[in-house]
């Protein structure tokens, strides 16, 4: 059932030109150089320290690594992180 729905969504995205983050509930990540990272559609903070932020996603987690991290704003589905970002990794569980 879930598989079918995912395929329908994928088809809608490709053929109806709907944005993928809306249709498939994927995170939308906006980065400004290394300074800011703005993530929409996250599912909560898993771990947070000076050098690393781990965010829960609908599927899997997102690791953001760097230094001098500060969460400027955090809302139920959005987060703005400031610092020096060195890497953004996806990890599918």
């Amino acid at each position, binding site marked *: 059932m879930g598989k079918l729905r995912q395929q329908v969504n994928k088809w809608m995205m490709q053929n109806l030109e709907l944005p993928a983050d809306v249709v498939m509930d994927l995170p939308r990540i906006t980065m400004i150089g290394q300074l800011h990272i703005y993530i929409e559609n996250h599912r*909560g*903070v*898993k*771990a*947070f*320290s*000076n050098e690393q932020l*781990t965010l829960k996603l609908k599927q899997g987690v997102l690791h953001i690594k760097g230094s001098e*991290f*500060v*969460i*400027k*704003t*955090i*809302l*139920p589905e959005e987060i703005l992180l400031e610092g020096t970002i060195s890497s953004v990794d996806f990890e599918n569980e």
Partner: protein
Amino acid sequence: MKTKWNHLKGYVRVEIIGQDSSSFINTCIQSGISLWDIQPLDDNRALVSISVSDIQRARSILKENKLKIRIKEKKGTPFLLKRMWKRNGFILGMLSFICLLFLLSNMIWNINVTGANPKTEYELRKAAVELGVIKGKFIFLLPNVREIQRDLTEKMDNVTWIGVTQHGTSYRFEVVEKEIPEAKQVTGPRHLVATKEAVIHSVFVEKGQPIVGVNDYVKKGSLLVSGLIGKEKKPQLVSAKGEIWGEVWYQTEVEVPLNTSFQTYTGKSKNRHYVSLFGLNVPVYGFSEGEFKDKTETLNESPLYLAKWKMPFSYIKKEIRETDGVKRSYSKAEAIEVGKKMAKKELSKKLPHDAKINGEKVWQQNVSNGKVKLTMLYQVIENIASAQPIPIQQGE
């Protein structure tokens, strides 16, 4: 924008001590408590900003997660005000200083009178006091300069004109006094001469030798009564005195329009009060326009001053008065009648008090462009004598 709002409401920087601060963040967000500027210090400490209104709810969540809280900084307007209130004496002093400066700079400090002699100055100051122009009065409570000037000029009758100017906190009255020449008793020898072209009507000589008789025609400047009397060989000099009445013709032109429209006030009026802020007029009291069909509006602005600077706000009083249009029309005969009266009035302004109008005649009259134009001739009997001193030749 959001951070500005938080700043206004006030927020605290708190240190959260204990493991697993991320679960605290998640719970907070899910229960609608907003957090920002989250800065991890080390493994079990993090610095977080929370708005004041959310702090109680955050505390209970912290208890559930077995975390400790320590308030580090209090930021935003409420805390700033609280801190400032500790130095309230300082603030009150500053405010009262501004208030005092404001009040003092809207007070009359000085009244100068120039151009008046001590007596007139005393009277003027007294009249000014009656109008309320007193040292220590607030300027914004007084009528404006124009009105003061008009009222003062009306009150003082030995003064031709009073100029009222306001320089900051001082009023200056410039006075032009009426010069009432004292009738000088001429004692020196003199002739009497004619002031204008005339036919002599009657002669009354107190002193001197009359030269002219009744019905004589005299030109301007011709000798009427000589100050030389006695024998021709040995004349005596006297101060000639007398009244010579002459018949003088005057010509006056008047125009009377047949149709005239006037505006009169009906007596109904409405006042509106405004406070002007940076050129924007905010109505304060009196909101109806009066619903008058015809009206005139007068604006009366009294600006406020702080020291020498005009403040961007002022008090404006708007007076709306109902007017009524009245039309007046004359027939031709009426217009001529009115014209005659007008001409006579105009003439009597020019004539000395003791002159007498003996006869009048319509010289020309024509109607054009809705106007009656009259040229009137008047026969006036007036005193035409004026003194002319006789130069005394020295050494004779």
